[in-house]
């Protein structure tokens, strides 16, 4: 019952999310290529975390989702697969301030923000690379090992 209630809450929240005025409407051509990622169209949105979902609610695209509130409305940010799982998962909690860089897309007739980076709690997490391709937790781990000089 708890799970069902949580799911209903998320559904209610998602349905309340309004398209952001600051994000340009997507072209028809873009709509036909839902995950085509144009780094030139990136924007950075700031807001307060409403919730982080390691699995999608009904109607959402697959993968993890970050729901956060901006001054212009609520945003459903797709964190792709595995962002909220594993040792190098994005550590995020409701109420935290967050800066998300990505591209707004229309997928399944809803606006979804494909997040490339998430800055929260002083940490910057890479969710996708510059091609919009999801970066896994293992990739983040290897990157952190590399930056720590451990090599691969």
């Amino acid at each position, binding site marked *: 019952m708890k799970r069902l209630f949580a799911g209903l809450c998320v559904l209610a929240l998602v349905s309340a999310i309004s398209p952001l005025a600051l994000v340009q409407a997507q072209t028809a051509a873009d709509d036909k290529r839902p*995950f085509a990622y144009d780094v030139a169209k990136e924007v950075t949105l700031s807001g307060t975390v409403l919730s982080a979902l390691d699995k999608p609610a009904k109607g959402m695209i697959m993968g993890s989702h970050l729901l956060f509130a901006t001054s212009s409305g609520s945003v459903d940010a797709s964190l792709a697969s595995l962002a909220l799982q594993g040792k190098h998962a994005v550590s995020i909690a409701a109420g935290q301030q967050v800066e998300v860089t990505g591209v707004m897309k229309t997928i399944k007739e809803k606006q979804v923000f494909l997040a490339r980076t998430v800055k929260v709690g002083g940490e910057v997490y890479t969710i996708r690379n510059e091609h*919009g391709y999801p970066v*896994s937790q293992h990739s983040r781990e*290897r990157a952190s090992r590399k930056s720590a000089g451990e090599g691969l």
Partner: protein
Amino acid sequence: MNRKTYASILALTLLAIVFLTACSSSSAPPVIAIAGASPASGTTVTTDYGTLTAVVTSNGTPVGQGVSVTFTAPTAGPSGTFAGGASSETDLTDSTGTATSSLFTANYVPGAFAVAVTTLPAAGGNINLTNGGGVYSFYVTGTEAINGGPNFYALAGSVVLDAAGDVVPYGDSVSNPTGISGEQDYNDAFGLTSPEPSGDAILAEPLALVAVGGQYTLTLTTNNTALGVAGVETLGVQFVNNSHALITQFDGTATSSGSLDLQILPSTPGASFAFTLSGVDPAYNSVVYGGVFGLAATTPAPTPPTLTLTGIYDEDDAGAVSTGNTLTGIASQSDALGRGTITGTNLGGYVGTLNYYIVGPEAVRLIDVDANDSAVGSAFGQGTATFTNASLGAACAPAQCSVFGVESNSYGFLYATAGQIAATPAASPDTTDGTFTGVGDVDEEGSVCVDSVTLVPPCTIAGTYFVSGTTGQNGYGNLTITAGDLGDVSVLGIYMTDPALNLNDPNNTTGGGGALVAELDGLNGTGVLTPQTDTTPGDFTGSASSYAFGAQDFFCSICEFDYVGQGSFTAGAFSGTGLLSDPYNAFDSGSAMNTGVGFSGAPLADATESATGRYTMYTTNETPNPFVITVPAFVVTNPVTPPTVIDFNVAIYQASGTQAYWIDEDTFSLSLGSLQQQGDMSLVPAVRRARAAVKAAAKTKQKQK
């Protein structure tokens, strides 16, 4: 006449009889009594029968020593060889008239055969023998649940099964002094990589292949305790025919899909191959490769000799695409189980070593065995033809038709696509792009391509393609779907294969070849293009044949389940049962290993089916006809826990009456798999055991009566 005269006449008569008898005996041909093989007339492939013996008699009396007897085994198919590898041997009888061969060892081909035994003048007979079991290669790829998973993982290997389904050592104590029963390479690129160059040994295991309903489980006990359940891996197996099965790892430590195929050994590899690989790079991002390569003896020849590999390949590494790269490498000779190594490939600038497992001269499984990156795939022979645009697809006047299926690996951007194209080669197919039109389905992480008018799949697609016939890159090509026609699926590398191959079942010479496919546009997945030869529903959904089926399904985040099974159509409705591997609990059954799972649906032919071969099982059809998977509850409770029943939206593309691809396109789930018509399974190892058990039980019953 006195007594003396009578005695003389009698003596003369007897003498005459003795003389005549002796004369007639000396001219009568000798007779061979087949003593057979010792100790047995049946053995496992690669192992020895002992010696073959035959007794030569004349009038029931052994001829004595020094008579030549020739044993001749078939030179192809199920057979064996004598000491030194000869298929024929001549031996002299000893003082008892017995000719005894050297040790006779079964070759790699299962089945019955006769060794002809002859002597002069013109006497002969047969020794009837049966090679049982077989040497099988296998490979799977999917999601590993152990070792901090979910991780990507790949597994490839080779194993010897006897006729009863036991995993047994190959060869004898000389050829196989350690008594191993198989070998494998496992690689999650995350700390669980088989030690190289040895790989893992697969150890003997009685009753390893066990029937579970219409399917089997195959237990592989390895010497690597970090893998599977303390070193023991279990595969779920669905045989398609005697030489091919669909498989999934089925022990809760990982889930995956792949193939098990009888090996033709020894095999001399063909001169040119097409290949694809799918895996993760050293940064653990998804990567795919595809290309073509040739093989030639390395000169000057090292000891032992090697093959030099040269070719061309394409790569999509987490969206970074590069094409036309030079491929090099050195391939070692394979060992007794068809395993060998390709070094120095430098794929993507980092893949150092690929191991290979031979299926046959034109089919090889490849696995990246580097510790920091992993990939698995296949290389298929290209035959001898020079390819052109006209080589793609099967005639479907006025075009050339193919169906395709491509899917990401478990660690990529999750998607699956399938479709049908009708290609028109250009007037000058060697130099100009051909064109195609068709239909396609794609599910990208839950986002499904829909037609702009009907608002349901499929999407109408069009584009161009080109296949090179240039020496050094024969069969290397590309196919571009107009951007936006099929979601983000657009640029596919295509690598042509021998038309005498079936890419789903490499021991099967029907299927028409087609091409391996690697997607090269930011999405990255691998798959196949199969010539479409028959769209008649009567030959598929109306067929009385049974079909083996399987699929690799991704749902929610990076959760995966896989299934294999068999079923058939009744009045167009499909019903089957199978095994479903579900370590991430998609069905909430209480177990990762689900048996007796039900699969059902009644495919509805599209209005355009005669041209496209497409069917749907959709909840949104006018009469909803979803594909339904029913997983029984694992834990028996009182009251009985109901099974989990989930409806899926599935489209099917019929390549012929014998093979089709199916794609799940739901918001919560996507998958790609195949249906393959089943053939003769009389030589499947455990089938023989099951039959023997039935016969034995019947005999016991009769005795009791």
